[in-house]
């Protein structure tokens, strides 16, 4: 690939107590594409996401966004970088004290100079797009899991992010709601053309979304160019992960 990656992880190490969660991890994320970070629970998927967002600092190594290392940045510079990011958190992370409308309007009110009328128009438009109309006065506690994620997505998309990060976007949702989230993902990526990083263990469904799949295993990242490759991996741990998440049916060797 000739183009410059948007996000680069260079020899990133993160240690918690005695556990080396990330061990000299390298990863390139390219513009406009969808990268899926998979792996069993406790393997450091969410940690990787938090490192990219600058919510945690690595013990060593560099994390470059557009070629600039965010690990050494001051808070103000980091905020500038973050303004290109949109995040959908695992539990949607809506502010409990604000209504759906105010939650979605929050980034616009805090980060733009738009008038209240312009904000209302833009927020209502995205609430219509995400099928949330009629719920704008409700509070997060009154919403179902799937609806919360849609509100979270609407909020993240308000400032038209260049990079969207999804932390377990379908965890805790039934198959119907899961498909709905994926459908919205396609729709919104098509519309805004964002680079997507998805942390998920929803194997094999996320394979359909991915341009690049990386699997975290014992602190190491193994990259795969296409979903087929991962199924043919000879690494025992990855074979075990594939087996555990996808079942025997997907292992070509088993099919033969």
């Amino acid at each position, binding site marked *: 690939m000739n183009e410059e990656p948007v996000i680069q992880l260079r020899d990133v190490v993160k240690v918690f107590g005695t556990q080396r969660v990330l061990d000299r991890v390298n990863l390139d994320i390219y513009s406009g594409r969808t990268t899926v970070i998979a792996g069993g629970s406790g393997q450091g998927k969410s940690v990787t996401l*938090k490192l990219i*967002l600058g*919510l945690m600092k690595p013990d060593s190594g560099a994390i470059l966004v557009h070629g600039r290392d965010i690990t050494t940045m001051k*808070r103000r510079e980091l*905020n*500038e970088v*973050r*303004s290109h*990011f949109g*995040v959908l*958190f*695992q*539990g949607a*992370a*809506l*502010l*409990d004290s604000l209504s759906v409308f105010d939650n979605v309007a*929050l*980034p616009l009110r*805090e*980060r733009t100079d738009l008038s209240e009328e312009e904000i209302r128009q833009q927020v209502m438009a995205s609430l219509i797009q995400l099928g949330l109309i009629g719920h704008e006065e409700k509070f997060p506690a009154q919403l179902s899991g799937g609806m919360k994620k849609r509100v979270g997505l609407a*909020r993240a998309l308000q*400032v038209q992010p260049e990079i969207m990060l999804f932390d377990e976007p379908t965890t805790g949702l039934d198959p119907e709601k899961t498909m709905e989230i994926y459908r919205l993902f396609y729709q919104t990526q098509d519309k805004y053309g964002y680079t997507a990083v998805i942390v998920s263990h929803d194997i094999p469904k996320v394979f359909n979304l991915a341009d690049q799949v990386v699997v975290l295993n014992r602190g190491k990242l193994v990259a795969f160019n296409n979903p087929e490759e991962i199924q043919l991996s000879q690494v025992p741990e990855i074979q075990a992960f594939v087996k555990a998440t996808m079942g025997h049916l997907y292992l070509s060797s088993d099919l033969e």
Partner: protein
Amino acid sequence: MIGKYLENIGGVTLYYLHDLGRMGVYLLRIWRGGIKRPFRILAMIRQMREIGANSLGVIFFTGAFTGMVLGLQGYYTLRKFGSEGLLGSAVALSLLREMGPVLTALMVTGRAGSAMCAEVGIMRNSEQIDALECMAVDPFPYMLMPKFLATMISLPLLTMIFNVVGIFGGYLVGVKLLGVNPGAYMTGMQQSVVNKDIFMGLVKSLVFGALIVWICTGRGYFVHQIRGAGYGAEGVSRVTTQAVVLSSISILVWDYILTAIML
């Protein structure tokens, strides 16, 4: 054996030093957040309703009964020396200089401090604080500074209400129940209370207000990093208990320090 023991002591010492440093930086960040525009007046007023106005009932009752019991105790003590007339000044001075600021602060810690700690802790655990940071919204001016200012404004006001109610509680018991001369109660109070007494109470309540909001929101803010707190609901409940205990102890310790300095 000894090596391991020393290692443990070192580990615990380092942890507490780190915790103290973290809380110090936290306080500085709150203050820095306070001078950032826009000033969130509405958010602050909303917090004042939570912390101040909603605590009025509790303060009224504790104030009344503290004053009444001071009247009762004071009367029986002063009667031994035949100086029941001094009851007014005894009640007023005890309230203004000690009981008012300390008891108000303890009540606010229990009522509003615990709530603030749990609220911030839940926001941390459910990634709401992370979400704010990711939206490039600094949580310090956005949600912590309004709480800080609201507590600093509410606590002195609540203390003064506590004092006034307490003085009338003492009056009720001393004058109406035990028959102290009403004129003696009021004039005695007016003659013995000087500006310095009121000032002392005010300074105390300001310091206690800062302590409450600093410790309570700070414990909640660092719920994920506090040793032994655990995760989820359990973590928040442990940290809330810790915040209330720590705030209460600090209030009493600082009460002594401030009294020693200002007397």
